[in-house]
C-alpha cells in the first residue's frame, strides 16, 4: 500500500497536480461519503446487536444451519448473502459482526470478506442508474444481477476453501 501511494504521488508530480490541494479535496469527499453512510450504519448495527442479544439469531441460525452446512456455507454468512444486494450499510454491520464473533481470519470471516469484496449493493445501483434516465421497465436486469450476486457468494466460499485453508 505505501508503494501504491508513492506511485500515485510521483504520477501526480509528473502530471503537475497540486498534490496537497487535490488530497484535501478528495478527503473532503471522503467525509461526505462517511457521513452519508453513518446513519444507516448506526441504525443497522443497533438492530443487528439487538437481534443477537435477544437470542433470535441463535434460533434463526439453528434453523438455517443444516441447509447451509449441506451446501458447505458457513452459517454466519447466510444473513449477509441475503442482505448484501439490498443494503450496503446493513451488510457492513453483519460483516463486522462476523469479524467480532469468529475473527477476520476464520473460515467464516474470510468468506464474509470475499463476499463483501466481490458484490455491490445491487438494488441501489439499479435504482440510481435507471432512475436517472426515467426507465421503468428494466426487463431481465434484476435476474442477471442477482444471478451474479449468487455466483459471487458460491465462489467466495469455494475460493476461500481452495486458496486460503
Amino acid at each position, binding site marked *: 500500500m505505501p508503494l501504491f501511494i508513492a506511485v500515485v504521488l510521483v504520477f501526480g508530480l509528473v502530471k503537475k497536480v497540486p498534490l496537497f490541494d487535490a488530497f484535501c479535496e478528495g478527503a473532503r469527499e471522503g467525509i461526505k461519503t462517511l457521513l452519508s453512510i453513518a446513519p444507516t450504519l448506526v441504525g443497522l448495527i443497533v438492530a443487528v446487536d439487538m437481534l443477537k442479544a435477544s437470542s433470535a439469531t441463535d434460533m434463526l441460525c439453528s434453523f438455517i444451519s443444516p441447509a447451509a452446512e449441506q451446501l458447505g456455507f458457513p452459517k454466519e454468512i447466510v444473513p449477509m448473502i441475503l442482505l448484501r444486494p439490498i443494503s450496503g450499510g446493513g451488510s457492513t454491520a453483519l460483516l463486522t459482526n462476523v469479524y467480532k464473533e469468529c475473527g477476520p481470519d476464520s473460515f467464516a470471516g474470510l468468506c464474509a470478506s470475499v463476499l463483501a469484496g466481490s458484490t455491490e449493493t445491487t438494488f441501489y445501483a439499479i435504482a440510481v442508474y435507471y432512475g436517472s434516465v426515467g426507465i421503468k421497465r428494466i426487463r431481465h436486469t434484476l435476474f442477471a444481477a442477482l*444471478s451474479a450476486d449468487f455466483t459471487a457468494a458460491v465462489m467466495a466460499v469455494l475460493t476461500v476453501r481452495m486458496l486460503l485453508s
Partner: protein
Amino acid sequence: MMNYIFGALILISVVCSAVTGRGRELTQGVIDGASDSVKLLTTMAGMMLLWSGIMEIAQRGGFTALLGRVLSPVLRRVFKNVPKKSKALSKISMNVSANLLGLGNAATPFGISAMKELRRLSPREDEASGDMVVFVVINTASIQLMPTMIGTLRQMYGSRETFSILPCVWLSSICALAVGLGIAKLFQGRERD
C-alpha cells in the same frame, strides 16, 4: 424495503427477548450497538479520508482516463451495438475504470451520463435496451481492485494478513461478472430473433 427490514429486525428482537426473558441483555445490546457503531465509524474514518485523498490525486493526474483508454477496446466488444462515434463508449469506460479504482463518487456521474447516451440510442422511451441492462449489470457487480474498506475493517478486528483475500476477491468478482454478463447477453441475443 429497508424500512420493513429495519422494523422487522427490531420488532423480532423485542418479541423474542420478551419470550426468552432476556430483557436486560437486550437493553445492553442497544447501548453496545450504538456506541460500537460510532467506534467503528471513527476507526474507519482515518483510512477512508486518506484513501479518498490519494485517489483524488490519481484522478486529477488522469489515472482514470488512462485506464479508460486501455479498457475501451474490450468494452467496444461488449457494447457492439453502440456506434463508435457515440459518446456513450467513452463515458462507459470512464465509469468502469473509476469502479475498478474504487472511486464510487466519481463512477456514478460518469455512469449516469453513460445511461443518458445509451438512452438516446434506444428506440423505446421507458424500457431498458439490451446495452443498458449490460451496463447496469456491470455496475451491480463489484469490480473494485482494492477493497480498501474491507481491508481496513479486517485490520481493525485483528487480521494478520489483511489483503490475503485479494486473489479470492478477484476470482469471485470475475466469475460473478461473467455470469451476469452471460445472462444479460443471452436475453439480448434472444430478443433479436
